[in-house]
């Protein structure tokens, strides 16, 4: 069943269709939130609230964009609200890297990995969101502008800033050579 049909059914109150929609987009949103927060407790809270808000407002969703894009928009807003409320963010756990089946990646030291997480977390949230959405989710500037509700030019400059910042930080920390 395609996404549009599922959305129509979900709007009519079909629980199964709504559940399928949420399950199909679960990993995309989870990945985005995890990269944004780097915190297991916060990620779980935000994911739960995002899903709840999506279910409550399913009738407001117009299928101009993908359902996953809409969920990411909600997740971004929930995360921004959480930051405003100044929820304490726990320290980064160095063991959060999952057991990957790629031996090359396993070989990378935990220290280097932790440094990379620190670099992304030290970016301001709006710039971090742009970088994650562009680099990992491969959204276009226009789509990111819709998600973050800002002009395309702002998205472009935020990405430029983020990449330059990452380059400088990785070089400073000796992860990438000049």
């Amino acid at each position: 069943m395609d996404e549009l049909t599922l959305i129509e059914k979900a709007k009519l109150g079909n629980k199964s269709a709504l559940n399928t929609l949420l399950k199909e987009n679960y990993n995309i949103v989870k990945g985005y939130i995890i990269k944004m927060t780097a915190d297991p407790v916060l990620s779980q809270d935000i994911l739960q609230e995002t899903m709840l808000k999506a279910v409550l407002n399913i009738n407001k969703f117009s299928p101009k964009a993908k359902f996953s894009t809409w969920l990411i928009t909600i997740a971004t807003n929930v995360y921004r609200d959480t930051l405003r409320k100044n929820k304490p963010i726990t320290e980064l756990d160095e063991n959060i890297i999952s057991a990957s089946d790629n031996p090359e990646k396993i070989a990378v030291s935990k220290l280097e990995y932790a440094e990379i997480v620190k670099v992304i977390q030290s970016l301001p949230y709006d710039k971090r969101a742009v970088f994650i959405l562009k680099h990992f989710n491969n959204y276009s500037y226009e789509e990111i502008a819709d998600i973050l509700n800002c002009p395309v030019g702002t998205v472009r400059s935020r990405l430029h800033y983020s990449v330059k910042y990452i380059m400088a930080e990785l070089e400073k920390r000796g992860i990438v050579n000049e």
Partner: protein
Amino acid sequence: MSKEDKIINSLIDKHYNEAYDINVLKENKNIESLENKIEASVNKMDLLDDMDFSFDIDTLKIIEQAEQIQTRKNSIEENLYFIIASVLILSIFGVIFICIGIKSVIYFEIALICIMPWSLIPFSIYGLRGRQDE
């Protein structure tokens, strides 16, 4: 904006398959090292793809939770409408009584006492018929 900044910005746009100023890159020949640096830096960030936390969320439970919230919200709305309607009706009666005079309240009550018992007759007839049919 410095010349190097312009080159880096164009290279970033190029890396992410977005529209970029090709003239800026054509004018400068030593952009390869900068391009490699950008590639190496952003590719390093791919390590974040391995970040995962072992938690799972029961989506069906969330749907049920949302239903409960919706039901609660609806009942609050209904109560609110009831209160508003009651206040509105009572206010209308109040205004009418003030305009017509306080004596009319007593007349209205007497009329109500006289009419109300009669209104019960159709209900009792309907009830009796129902019993007879059984």
